[in-house]
């Protein structure tokens, strides 16, 4: 187990002058045993950052530390890491058993019989004992994925690196494996770095998320912090599904001018806005309310464009009545409520649930109101839950 520290890490690709910055001055620290998820859209530099930690890529600037050792000059071999690749990268010519023992043979002095024993017990744990004599080509996607995980676990490394390991599985299997990886990481307690572009995976798996965009660190925090206390507009829009709705562009006379309606800012909002002139309001779909008649002066008439029933809830795509553009925003409504296309409602944006962002910098200038401590990680939540019945 180990701590990982990234210190001002920058990675440039290409020649001097016309280089592309893949990772831009990222600093962060992963605690021992932590499950950290790098999340961001494609091209955000999350995979590059992981490959830098793995030693498969060398950073252009900055330091990578495992525990207190600077590992900049060390290859993957010396870093004692195990990695699960998106395409699993199982050795096609070797059996499952050979795949799993390869790392132990290469990186340790372990005697043959001990290797065999370790492989057998790991295979049992992963439920792949009966596949040991098969070649990867004979396995299903889900089985290959298990073998890839087993190959990483059997090494008993300092750090697990997982590069979008679930993206080639079908939806059902993905959900199953998500839970399983969570459980494994929890049981083994190995520091794990997980890369994904899927914000659901990020939310459900990580102790902490590292949100990246264009190679720049956007926010580091627990899933709930990133969800409820987004550092900027990007994080607000990226975390959460469906995405947060954004309205407005500029503030005039303490009123936010939006396409099709106006939104008068409340006192706390005005304080946050201060001198900012160009401001955007963000509200999550589950916080917008649809009423038959206006609740307060900020409510505005909307017309339903599309309804997507999901069962217990429905996503209702609406457009403000007097709106110029074709853009819609989404409202999460009760699934049992009868809502049809072209129906009219009054949309209510509760001021306490709204975020405000500076349009120019994207920075969050006003957070929603909230109670509870969002800095608590899943593990800590679990621990406190374990303790509470007795106390």
């Amino acid at each position, binding site marked *: 187990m180990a701590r990982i520290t990234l210190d001002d890490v920058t990675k440039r690709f290409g020649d001097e002058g016309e280089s592309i910055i893949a990772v831009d001055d990222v600093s962060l620290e992963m605690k021992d045993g932590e499950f950290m998820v790098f999340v961001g859209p494609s091209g955000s530099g999350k995979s590059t950052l992981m490959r830098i930690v*793995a030693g498969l890529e060398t950073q252009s600037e900055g330091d990578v530390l495992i525990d207190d050792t600077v590992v900049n000059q060390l290859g993957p071999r010396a870093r004692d890491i195990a990695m699960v690749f*998106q395409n699993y*990268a*199982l050795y096609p*010519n070797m059996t499952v058993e050979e795949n799993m023992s390869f790392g132990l043979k290469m*990186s340790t002095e372990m005697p043959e019989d001990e290797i065999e024993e370790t492989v057998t017990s790991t295979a049992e744990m992963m439920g792949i004992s009966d596949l040991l004599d098969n070649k990867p080509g004979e396995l299903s996607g889900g089985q290959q994925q298990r073998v890839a995980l087993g190959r990483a676990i059997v090494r008993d490394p300092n750090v697990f690196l997982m590069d979008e390991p679930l993206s080639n599985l079908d939806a059902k299997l993905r959900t199953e494996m998500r839970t399983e990886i969570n459980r494994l990481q929890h049981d083994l307690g190995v520091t794990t770095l997980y890369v994904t572009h899927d914000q659901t995976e990020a939310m459900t798996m990580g102790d902490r998320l590292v949100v990246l965009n264009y190679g720049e660190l956007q926010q580091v925090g627990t899933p709930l912090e990133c969800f409820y206390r987004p550092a900027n507009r990007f994080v607000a829009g990226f975390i959460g599904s469906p995405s947060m709705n954004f309205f407005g562009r500029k503030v005039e006379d303490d009123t936010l001018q939006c396409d099709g309606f106006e939104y008068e800012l409340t006192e706390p909002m005005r304080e946050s806005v201060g001198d900012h002139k160009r401001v955007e309001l963000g509200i999550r779909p589950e916080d917008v309310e649809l009423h038959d008649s206006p609740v307060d002066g900020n409510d505005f008439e909307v017309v339903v464009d599309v309804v997507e029933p999901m069962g217990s809830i429905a996503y209702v795509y609406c457009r403000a009545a007097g709106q110029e553009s074709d853009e819609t925003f989404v409202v999460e409504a009760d699934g049992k409520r009868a809502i049809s296309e072209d129906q009219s409602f009054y949309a209510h944006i509760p001021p306490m649930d709204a975020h405000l962002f500076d349009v120019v910098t994207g920075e969050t200038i006003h957070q929603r109101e909230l109670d509870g401590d969002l800095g608590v990680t899943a593990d800590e939540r679990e621990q406190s839950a374990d303790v509470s019945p007795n106390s």
Partner: protein
Amino acid sequence: MAADDASFDAENGSQRLDKDTKESLVRVVRHGVLLGWSFVVLFPLYWLASMSLKPPGVANQLPPEWVFLPTVYNYIQLVQDGEFLAAFANSLIMVGASVILVLIIGVPAAYVLSRYDLPMERDILVWILSSRMLPPIAVVLPFFVIFRALNLFDTRIGMVFMYVSINISLVVWVMKAFFDGIPETLEEAARVDGATQFQGFTKVVLPAAKPGIFSVAIISFIFAWIELLFGLVLTSFESVPVTLFVYSFIGSRSIEWGMLAAASMAMILPVVVFLIVVNKYLAAGLSFGVVIKE
């Protein structure tokens, strides 16, 4: 109601009959076509084999004698004639060595071209291919002069180089495409697992590339084995390849058909043996236990 059922059954039955007839008709046609094609393909081979088994004087009769007493006379003559065995052994050694050498040079070259961003990579590849762009007859005389100058004329080593130069572009191009198809994450996985880059190549990539390597090996073998022109010009006595020896049965006055056929049959043998040995790998195809990134 019962009558309805009966007519329904009858109808059903006749439909089934129709289907059966159609299926058997298709089967007959398919077998007919295959038989016909097999005849086209195998007849020359049969002709050659039968000619090699005919006694002298019968082999070249036209119309041929369809019924004759087979004899291994031609084969015995061949074996007793030391020159044929010498040429056969020459060819086996030279071609075998050239295949090993061309793989030793070509496979790592292809790997480097596939994995590293080299300056002028495209040009290097075209340059390698350009070695085969001129027709052999156009370069054979310059080669003769060069071989004389370098004391390679009529040497086995000279012929090995010649065969390597014939096959190197094939090996590099085919193997580069093959390595391109092997995901780089395999080597990365090996490196993370503690292997050095070289071990990653030898223990993971090369075994994964086996079908490709055996494919280019067999094709290189065949190309070198059947080469005649360079052997004709660049050898005289010491390093005569078996093709040249077979060719020698076509004299200016007469053709020794029986011996020619027997020697040709013997020439087929190594290719068949080689194919049988590597067939497993050729058939293995390209099943890499990895999912290609979409």
